[in-house]
């Protein structure tokens, strides 16, 4: 008789170091696992509410408020160059930003029947894309919060701030790289939570993250938290090494492509490998030099602006007045998330992930460098997420009968109480100048009509061969609609692009300027750009000279703190 080996398989024959793969789903029991259950009817209603409120708050009054910003104009004109000239910029592309953002805008505009004029002013085409991306981002944020907590309260709170905050509505409507970057970052976070441990999720999440970096470089500050999330989501899986490698491959691919582009153009290194910041190398632009330059730019910190006084104090003059609740509450919530997350990281990585994401971008803003007002954009969804996590934990400790009315009242106060501690009023209502109750500015104040009037005046009164110094926000309108103004250039390019400066403005001669089409914001930027760094010293002087001594104002419009003017240079 053969020995009976069926009852106990003779495993003793195997060397102990031979290991079999652990089960795929033996993951860390976190709230993320619980959150994978289906939405259900209440969840579906909550999600639809979040998406609809995001759509309404951002789409209503979109083309009227806020004023078209310089940076919106820059990215629209670069998208214009992609479509019309098959290049990355109508002027010299200086590697100031990676191009994925305006390539996306160009792709979107290409789809529109009327291209740049589909919605009137060319910037509107970009703004419509921002609304679409915002709705998609709202979905990602809702799902991220749901999967991190396993409930519906956190996603509702997070998307409430993301959709209604004055800070959010104001900046998220603008056609900016930061908004596109937020979309990719949230997608990158959402994917590993959606399909835990699946192999190709790592690749797609990495690709989304890599795309976010080549959309706006500061997305790199999210890398540690997202990588940690991917690591935690696969920690117990047999395929973890491949998932993590795929994430790294996906994240690297767009970035490597960007560097490869510069290499193929012969623009990776500066001429003679010179990284001297006080004496910029001549000859050609360089990706690495530009990065070196950007790293060394400094205009004080967020809390202590530079001594020149020209760099606006955005934290106190722009961000906090628009939404102190989100910024103060978000900072406190982020610290709580980090504290709790660190101490509970073994059991539940959700808090550390949320806190880490917010901390990454908060650190970027606080560390001290050049800050523009819309740089706050990536902070908004992550502060909203941190607040949601903390509120969710707190409200779970009190009875439902108390929690539901409390949260309802709090949201109603934020939406409807016209002042409530914020100079700009509540999220939806505010008091007007005569004390009357009115909708908050994003849903009430028209601003962009001034720029459209300005463009109309130019078309009626200025010949097309005039050499115009203007701001980027009207550039596409003057170059895409016939008759075009080929000699209209922004003051940035008239100052710093050697080709524009030499060919149109006589190498920096005020007599070559015919008109200034400008705002008070542009004048401030010109003064700042003229002497803010050692490399920019005096580059706008010839324009400021022409404006001060040889120009007369021929048109103007004023509304609140916005002053648009057209000046004719008298030769």
């Amino acid at each position: 008789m053969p020995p009976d080996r069926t009852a106990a398989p003779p495993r003793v024959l195997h060397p102990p170091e031979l290991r079999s793969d652990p089960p795929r789903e033996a993951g860390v029991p976190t709230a993320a696992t619980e959150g994978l259950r289906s939405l259900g009817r209440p969840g579906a209603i909550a999600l639809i509410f979040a998406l609809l409120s995001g759509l309404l708050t951002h789409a209503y009054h979109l083309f009227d408020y806020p004023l078209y910003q310089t940076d919106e104009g820059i990215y629209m004109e670069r998208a214009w160059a992609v479509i019309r000239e098959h290049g990355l910029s109508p002027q010299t592309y200086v590697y100031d930003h990676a191009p994925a953002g305006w390539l996306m805008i160009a792709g979107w505009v290409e789809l529109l029947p009327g291209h740049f004029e589909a919605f009137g002013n060319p910037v509107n085409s970009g703004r419509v894309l921002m609304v679409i991306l915002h709705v998609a981002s709202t979905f990602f944020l809702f799902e991220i919060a749901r999967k991190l907590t396993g409930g519906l309260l956190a996603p509702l709170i997070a998307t409430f701030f993301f959709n209604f905050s004055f800070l959010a509505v104001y900046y998220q409507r603008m056609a900016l790289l930061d908004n596109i970057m937020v979309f990719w970052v949230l997608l990158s976070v959402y994917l590993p939570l959606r399909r835990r441990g699946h192999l190709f999720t790592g690749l797609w999440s990495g690709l989304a993250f890599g795309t976010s970096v080549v959309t706006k470089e500061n997305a790199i500050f999210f890398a540690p938290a997202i990588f940690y999330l991917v690591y935690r989501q696969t920690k117990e899986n047999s395929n973890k090494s491949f998932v993590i490698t795929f994430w790294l491959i996906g994240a690297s691919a767009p970035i490597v492509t960007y560097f490869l582009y510069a290499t193929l153009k012969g623009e990776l290194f500066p001429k003679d490998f010179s990284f001297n910041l006080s004496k910029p190398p001549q000859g050609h632009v360089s990706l690495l030099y530009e990065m070196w330059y950007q790293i060394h730019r400094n205009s004080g910190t967020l809390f202590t602006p530079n001594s020149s006084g020209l760099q606006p104090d955005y934290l106190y003059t722009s961000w906090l007045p628009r939404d102190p609740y989100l910024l103060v509450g978000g900072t406190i919530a982020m610290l709580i998330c980090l504290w709790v997350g660190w101490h509970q990281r073994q059991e539940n990585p959700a808090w550390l992930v949320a806190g880490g994401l917010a901390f990454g971008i908060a650190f970027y803003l606080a560390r001290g460098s050049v800050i523009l007002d819309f740089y706050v954009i990536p902070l908004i969804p992550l502060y909203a997420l941190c607040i949601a996590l903390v509120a969710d934990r707190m409200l779970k400790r009190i009875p439902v009968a108390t929690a539901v009315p409390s949260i309802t009242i709090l949201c109603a106060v934020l939406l409807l109480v016209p002042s409530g501690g914020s100079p700009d009023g509540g999220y939806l209502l505010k008091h007007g100048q005569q004390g009357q109750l009115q909708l908050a500015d994003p849903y009430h104040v028209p601003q962009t009509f001034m720029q459209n009037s300005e463009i109309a005046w130019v078309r009626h009164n200025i010949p097309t061969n005039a050499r115009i110094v203007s701001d980027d926000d009207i550039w596409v309108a003057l170059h895409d609609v016939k008759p075009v103004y080929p000699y209209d250039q922004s003051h940035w390019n008239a100052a710093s692009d050697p080709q524009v400066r030499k060919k149109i403005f006589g190498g920096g001669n005020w007599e070559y300027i015919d008109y200034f089409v400008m705002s008070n914001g542009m004048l401030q930027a010109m003064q700042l750009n003229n002497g803010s760094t050692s490399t920019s010293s005096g580059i706008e002087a010839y324009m400021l000279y022409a404006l001060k001594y040889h120009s007369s104002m021929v048109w103007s419009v004023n509304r609140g703190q916005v002053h648009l003017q057209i000046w004719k240079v008298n030769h």
Partner: protein
Amino acid sequence: MLDLIYAVLVLVSVLVTVQSAHTLYLTLYTWDRPPAEAQAPDKFKPPRLSFTVMLPARHEEEVIQATIGRVAESNYPQELIQILVICRADDQGTIDMAEEKIGQLRQHGLRNVEMVVFRDEPINKPHGLNAALPHAAKDVLAVFDAEDDIHPDIFNVVNTVMEEEEVKVVQGGVQLMNFDSSWYSALNVLEYFFWFKSRLHYHARLGAIPLGGNTVFFERSLIVELGGWDEHNLTEDAEIGLRLSAAGERIRVVYDSRYVTREETPPTLGHFLRQRTRWSQGFLQTLHQGSWRNLQTRRQRFLAFYTLAFPQAQALLGLYVLFSIGTMFYFKAPVLVALISFLPVMMLLAYFLICTVGLYEFTRAYGMKVYPRVVIGMLIAWIPYQLVIAYASMRAVGRQMRGVSNWEKTRHIGAHRQQVAYRTESLREAGDRAA
């Protein structure tokens, strides 16, 4: 004209990128599936099925005795196992060694090993298998190679899988082990690792599988019905797998690091080249022979065609690698075209990274250790290895066109046994238990 060249460059680059992405997907397919799909059962059913083990051998004096010993001493009732050592009459060396081993086993009371000696032609493995088929008397045919280092529980695994899942064909895992013995061995080992652990599962799931040459188990009646192996095909294993697939037969692949059959990489580059040539030519023969056209769905037929034609594509890819290197230095293309033409290079880098991780996974699974120098060596060998494979594919096409189809034998020296000598003691212990 220049525009046409750019268009071709872009088209080829995109096609190669898509193909590389698909290959990468197949390479890692199993890591995206629940591990249970590929693993062996954790508990064995009582032995019920009987096995005829077919051991074709030619000039295998160095390894045949150990292989016979391992099969004979497996953890399975000896009355349920019949071992047929298959040799041609002119290979007296192997016959002598095999008979010596059979004598030794008989002294230990193991009398289930027989010699099958054939005298006719062709001289190749499928003919040997066909010659032995009439002597096979058990339920299941098991094919092993002469150098195979089988796991003593492999028959328990197959018995359980066939019984529980009601399948008639099982492909067991085969793994080259000596990843550190030559400049190409790590890459060769990884090919086996990814092929048996991952890609074959995809083929099995789709129902178009080119089977491997050993550790493969068939219900005997199936092979008899099919008329045995194709004696004029250099990859009769792949061919019979596709024939079985076309007949609608469900095939189960079991790759479990605990139960794989261990093999060695070819000892010299020449042997490696000849082995690759044989495989490529065999695939080419199978492609022309056309049994894959009988597969039921278009998807199955495409997969079979893609797999069989791939060695020829590899030959072209080898040429493309040389062409690409040339264009880097002598051809100035627009930036966008140049960027797109870099996509295959990026896929190549991605594939290398995956292989590096794969090497660590492989060594982890088998309790071995990999040193950074092996990874660096793999990086250096990467392109030459692709070129060798491409050359083998071109050589196969040349042989096929000249009508040359003799079996170029791969020499075996037992390097895998030297590398994993620690396992011998365990196996001997198993033999003692079985005895």
